[in-house]
């Protein structure tokens, strides 16, 4: 018998978080990520954990702030409009150097938008998670197995670098069911000597705070934080290359768009078109290396997105605009079809990279 379980992406995130040692979940329901909260509500009380449905997203993220300050692995999850509400808390957590996992199962926007899948929070996740200079580690799973694995990875990275990790998924990834193996190693959380665990009259007070009224000090904190970010950019970028060895056209996409794109690449290869795929797994840090390498070989990049074109800017930056980067997209809760991507590949192949 198989040792796998059949899970929804949302359930895989919840179960993986529990395996990673997370015993505190705070959230507020919103489609299409509600199964994360439902799963936590069912399981946390049975394992001595805490599930709390907060009165709002803002309350939930501040509860995350509190538990993270106390040194425990903690998470919240939401979907696009709910993440926007959490952005103040995300900035405060960055300013306080607190580790936590935040999950965004994206839906179409802006505003209340719809409940169908989207990738239009790419900028929000990689650029503007809140006010001030800060970054979050952004992980983009493309299978239910990766939903689980990157959740564990997210907790580990968050603890290592004392910052927020975000799982940037979408409605399809959250709802789709696939067999998952949950048999993976989890590194124990590192010691957190900064946590507010009580002095027991044996050490100085630990203070977790994002307020710095002395400009020189605040500047120093910012510079130190960005030195840490630089190290992450150098060491933690993750990506998958597919059929890139002899590729003359490079399709690039993350999450659900990458799955569709892979099918299109396979079809194009059958037609004799030399096309490959770069799939970023970390969106921040953005994996620049494979793009730099490809920019000297391919005649065109095609960025496949469920947005009006957001990641495309990072592709242009990573390739220094050496060759054209075109957009193949659907929005509003729609997913590009393999046929649509294939058409874009055929067009790029015929036009030879001309705009």
């Amino acid at each position, binding site marked *: 018998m198989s040792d796998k*379980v059949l899970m929804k992406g949302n*359930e895989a995130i919840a179960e993986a978080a529990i395996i990673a040692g997370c015993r505190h979940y705070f959230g507020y329901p919103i489609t299409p990520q509600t199964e994360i909260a439902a799963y936590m509500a069912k399981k946390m009380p049975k394992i001595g954990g805490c599930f709390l449905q907060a009165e709002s997203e803002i309350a939930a993220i501040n509860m995350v702030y509190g538990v993270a300050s106390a040194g425990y692995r903690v998470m919240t999850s939401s979907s696009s409009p709910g993440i926007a509400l959490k952005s103040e808390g995300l900035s405060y957590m960055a300013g306080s150097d607190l580790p936590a996992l935040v999950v965004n199962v994206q839906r179409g926007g802006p505003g209340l938008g719809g409940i169908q899948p989207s990738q239009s929070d790419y900028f929000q996740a990689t650029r503007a998670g809140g006010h001030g200079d800060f970054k979050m580690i952004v992980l983009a799973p493309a299978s239910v197995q990766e939903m689980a694995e990157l959740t564990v990875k997210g907790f580990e990275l968050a603890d290592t670098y004392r910052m927020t990790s975000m799982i940037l998924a979408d409605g399809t990834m959250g709802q789709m069911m696939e067999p998952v193996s949950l048999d993976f190693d989890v590194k124990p959380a590192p010691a957190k000597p900064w946590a507010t665990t009580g002095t027991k009259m044996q050490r100085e007070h630990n203070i977790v705070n994002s307020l710095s009224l002395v400009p020189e000090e605040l500047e120093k904190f910012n510079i130190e934080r960005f030195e840490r970010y630089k190290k992450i950019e150098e060491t933690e970028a993750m990506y998958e290359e597919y059929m890139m060895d002899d590729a003359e056209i490079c399709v690039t996409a993350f999450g659900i768009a990458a799955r569709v794109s892979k099918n299109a690449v396979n079809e194009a290869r059958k037609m004799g078109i030399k096309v490959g795929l770069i799939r970023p797994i970390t969106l921040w840090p953005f994996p620049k290396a494979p793009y730099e390498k490809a920019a000297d070989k391919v005649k065109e990049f095609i960025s496949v997105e469920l947005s009006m074109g957001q990641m495309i800017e990072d592709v242009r930056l990573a390739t220094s605009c050496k060759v054209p980067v075109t957009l193949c997209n659907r929005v509003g*809760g729609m997913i590009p079809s393999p046929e649509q991507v294939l058409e874009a590949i055929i067009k790029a192949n015929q036009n030879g990279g001309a705009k």
Partner: protein
Amino acid sequence: MEFKRITILCGHYGSGKTNIAVNLAVELSKQKNNVLALDLDIVNPYFRTKDSADTFSQNGIKLIASQYANSNVDIPALPQEMYAVIDDKSANAVIDVGGDDRGALALGRLAPSINEENNYNMFMVINCFRPLTKTPNDVLEVMREIEVAGKIKFTGLINNSNLGRETESADVLYSVKFAQECSKLLNLPVVLTTVNQKLFAELNGKIENLYPLTLQNNNVI
């Protein structure tokens, strides 16, 4: 398969009950006239019997679903015509109930009439490869919650244990033992073990009450 006037399908979300509801409604339409399919799923707006609207119309089945099902409107609405199932005693119905006890609350509205008439079957769809129903005791717990919320007693089990596309014969054979354990614990019969067409060919004759499912279309992802 022999049908009572009303067939109710419950199961933890992701158990596959909507798929089975569609299959049983089609089977029922081959045996009886005036077949209704009632979508009472107020829990998950993503997967609905409404996805099979074409299948229903081709087989002359009347689908009763919330006008908001499969739209972008994320509200737990019930269809206004739902009472046709209990008002029209000449109708033969399959009811798809939403996952877990909250979903079953919608069933409670129909329960007094269904219990009084007592011409129904209510089946629990089980999948031992789902994380929250991996042991017979897990299944028991979910069933008791559904019974309390829905106010109707179960009459049988449908074993739909699967791992999606990776399901193999050995997995199904294992699940049969699991279903039997559930059956013993709950004192309810396993009325069907459901598999896809490919596994049906491999397992036909080896498992009692094996039933081949026609699966709803999946996107190419």
